[in-house]
């Protein structure tokens, strides 16, 4: 077991660590702990935030924070679950600029509220994009399907 893993377990006993393959660790944490654990990883262990990703699963929205430990080449992925009826989580952007864009992106594409974000406006979608449509949710239905679009474009 790595020293960082041991420290994490002794400091935050509620987390679960799972090693999928060498250098790829997945750490499940409750969503209230996200700021505390990320600050611990970023400031004390100098891990770099590579990116976050949000996934719409059956149990809720899963948010993954991929922290990279560059000297060992290991990914520490923090996994949190946010309930679907109240998708809210603390924002990391106020103290970590690397999180700014991706939180805005997850906000517009998945509809997750990041409390405390300084500027939670859409990043990628157009201004005319409807506010209640979230393209990366499983129940999203596009107005035009890929097949229709292909038929449309290949029509002579």
């Amino acid at each position, binding site marked *: 077991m790595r020293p960082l893993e041991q420290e994490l377990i002794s400091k935050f006993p509620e987390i679960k660590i799972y090693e999928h393959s060498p250098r790829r660790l997945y750490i499940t944490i409750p969503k209230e702990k996200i700021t505390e654990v990320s600050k611990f990883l970023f400031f004390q262990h100098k891990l770099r935030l590579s*990116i976050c990703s949000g996934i719409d699963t059956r149990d809720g929205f899963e948010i993954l924070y991929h922290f990279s430990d560059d000297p060992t080449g290991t990914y520490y992925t923090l996994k949190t679950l946010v309930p679907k009826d109240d998708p809210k989580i603390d924002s990391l952007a106020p103290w970590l600029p*690397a999180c700014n864009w991706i939180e805005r992106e997850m906000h517009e594409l998945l509809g997750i509220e990041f409390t405390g974000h300084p500027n939670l406006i859409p*990043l990628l*979608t157009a201004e005319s994009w409807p506010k209640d449509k979230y393209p990366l949710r499983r129940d999203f239905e596009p107005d035009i399907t890929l097949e229709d679009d292909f038929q449309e474009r290949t029509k002579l």
Partner: protein
Amino acid sequence: MRRIVPVGPYHPLQEEPEFFKLIVEGEKVVGLEINIGYNHRGHEFISPKMTYEQVTFLVERICGICSNSHPFAYVMAVEDCAHIQVPERALYLRTINHELERIHSHLLWLGLAGHFIGYNTVWMWSWRYREPVLDLFELITGNRNHYAMNKVGGVRHNISEEQIPIIEKVLLDIETKVNMLTKAVLDDPVLRARLENVGVLTKKDAIAYGVVGPTARASGVAIDVRKDDPHGAYDRVNWDIIVFEEGDVLAKAKVRLLECIESVKIIRQCLAQMPKGEIETRVSEIPPGEGIGRTEAPRGEVFHYIRSDGKNSPFRHKIRAPSYMNIPSNEVAVKGYSIADACLILAAVDPCYCCTERIVAFEDNKMKYSGKDLLQLSLKKTEELKAKYKGRNKLTL
């Protein structure tokens, strides 16, 4: 008094849709707002609707310049998810292709940087030396861009014994030319005046913004995925990470130029060490699970995350290109410099372009236009335009 200088949405020099709002006081830039998303193509939305094989071709089209790094990272994510072992020779072939891509991309950036500051000699030189690399791609994979080299479990194209001397000859040529170019850039007083101490990104900011690739290495952050998280054949060859502490545009140029030499070193060793054997393994199914693949693209770390639920297509596919982390750092790098420098500073992180300029049209299994025909077409068009505007003043044309 504060004024706003809008640059974009169609950037006059970089030919890609992005919008920079420069907030200036007189000549000095005091703030920057960045707007992106004018060309959002929704890859993460399309990818779960395609099979694992098809996604390789989809992610290849994210970028025309780093069209090897995205599929490379993607196939590694799938291989990580399914615990697939790739044959040794395929690892070497992937590495060779990846390093050739780095050379051509860095030379492309140097040319553009020269063009941005009005030094077109540098532009013409470096693009001239970049051309043989694209020819090598055509030799190895059949395409100058979008090589279709990677597949889950291996590679599609092999390098034959006869091709190795040709590649080595081009490498020797590139090495001498890049060495000459490096000396010319470092000695030129005009270039130094325009690049030195301009657009400094401090180490602290580089860490806070999480920048990657040459942008990070020019600011003294010694990260390189090839060294830190060895993949491909990078742990089997000798090479060095290029790191500079200054953080200005000159340091970024130096990192990129010296990395070309390192790439030549890596390819040479790979060609010498490459074992014989299979270049792909058979992949039967992707079990439920998740995988992360990352590689060092010319602009920095490319990140792909795959979640599989056991079906034929990914459940979730997260893609992060390096410019996504690098462009926000412009906010701090550009502050305090003049508008004239801003043009170069904003380009110093090497934001992505697409350069698929050649076309080939087929009709009834025959090539419709050859290079000669295209030239004729172009000349015809010029004649048409001339006829259309005949008699008008040349200036108004």
